[in-house]
């Protein structure tokens, strides 16, 4: 069973999503925007000088974008699983 994107700490499972929502668009949109931006920040700043700002901000953008995409992917897996269970 796919683990919920927020891990075990929150413990309480949500019901599987039943449809594609605005929240999913935002998750995917944020993920797809943040990762290239993070890469651009890292590459462009590091090509000039190694600064804490460049590494920190670039890294944070990539991590955040990856997390958003992971949430979208996990929701999709929960959706598929819910659909399978319904069919059974």
């Amino acid at each position: 069973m796919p683990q919920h994107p927020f891990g075990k700490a929150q413990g309480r499972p949500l019901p599987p999503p039943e449809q594609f929502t605005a929240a999913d668009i935002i998750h995917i949109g944020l993920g797809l925007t943040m990762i290239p931006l993070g890469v651009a920040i890292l590459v462009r700043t590091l090509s000039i000088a190694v600064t804490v700002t460049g590494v920190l901000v670039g890294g944070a953008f990539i991590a955040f974008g990856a997390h958003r995409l992971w949430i979208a992917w996990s929701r999709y897996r929960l959706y598929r699983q819910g659909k399978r269970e319904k069919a059974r």
Partner: protein
Amino acid sequence: MSKNHNSTFDTAERVELRRDVTIWGSYTWGYADVGADIYVALGLVIGAAQGGAPLAFALAGLVYIMIGLAFTELASSYPVAGGGHYYSLRGLGDFAGFLAGVALLLDYTIDIALFATASTGYINFFLPYLGIRLQDFAVAFGPFQNINLLWLGETMAMITFLRWLNVRGIRESSRVNEVLGLVDLIMEMSVVAFGFVLAWRPELLVQQWTLEFPMPRQFMYGFSLAIISFVGLESISQAAQETRRPATVIPRTSIALIFTVFILALGFSTVGLGILPWQEFRAHEADPVAYLASHIPYLGVVAGPFAAFLGATILFISSNTGVMGDSRLIFSMSHFRLVSRWFRHVHPKHRTPSNAIVGFGWVGIVLTIIAFLTPRVLDTLANLYAFGATFGYMLVFTSLIRLRFSDPYTPRPYKVPLNIKWKRKDGSAVEVPVLGFLGLLGVSSIFLTVIITHEIGRIVGPAWILICLLYYVIFRRRSGLPVLGSVSHDWEQEQIDVLTSAEEFDLVEEYKQALIHRDRARGIKSRWSEES
């Protein structure tokens, strides 16, 4: 008898407050509140921390993440709107509950003044389009220079309007918050993304980082101001009270909210310093986001005015949050007999706490006037805001730690990570929150920095606390209540009422079982067992 009556009243009131706020609704609602801070903080923090602004935002943001996680645990365990005041009351007793309450009252009142001033600041972005120069309205009165009468008048009119709206009980719906929160999120993301793609010059950022990094004291000032870009986490507990199944919804929304706000604060400061020199932000500290957006090639013509319009709107709503927060908080403090019943007076026609709304509205207006007498109005208000927020957050962390020991029975749907299990002599286990201690250390360091570096905050903030304490001593003595001690509260019944009204029935059962287990271990008959 009266306790039972109050308990019933509270439950009824909470049930009335519950709305069907969804996960997405809770997220956007929180974003409409916390996301507005960057409109004020960007200019102030870059103006103070200069080339080191992104680092100031990052360091303050790390402390903010810990504060956010603490709020997430407390709000999902105790889904009540009182926020920091309620947690301190539960964890540390009446006196600490009062202290946290007055710190939050200071913050909410500053919130009214600061965000109304900032909102009108963004409205003034449009004045040049009308051929009006804001500087033409600046006057001098004796030792007070550069008092802008137009801006002051606009701000006072806005606060008066907000008071009127709130006394009449008119407030924005969750739907309005959802739409505004979403539009604001998209707008902020667009400014950051298009700013990076179309206008960002990393060489300017690196140049400012290396050549214009501030002196340590100046950097510390900027770092302590940066915390104001994350204030508003009380909205998490506010949302908890108005959400069905908060234990399920709150951890998910608040963690997503915390990281989005953190990333955007980092993004704005980095993109800002790669487009404009820090001095320009200082010169435009009343409308920094709109000013930045107007410098994005191709889109700036539209993005600048749109950001100004959105900033004015969202800051107006944030200012309204201050009016609402003040009245709700003082109402709760009065209920727990920390302040006089006078504050609970309800308007006979509109059924709103009119005394609290009008009273704190006046305090907001007085603070605004005082701030306009200083050289930098927004900086003065931000000074006070930082003091109130950090003082309140210190008590929240202390309550988090204390409640882990004093109330391990309440189910915690979310726990702050990094805990050490400790078995007590009576056999019960406590999870000691390491991150709680680290957060307390972090927020205490910001509080200390505020005291050291904020010339106005270190005088007015403690003065506010002392005046309120004086009132507290007189009120409690006159009412025949202990000053340092606490009135007895039936927290167990209260917790069951709260969880029941939140429809968290499985948590009610879990809580009752934990209490029965505790009573059995103590060898006493439990009031919660089926037989009794």
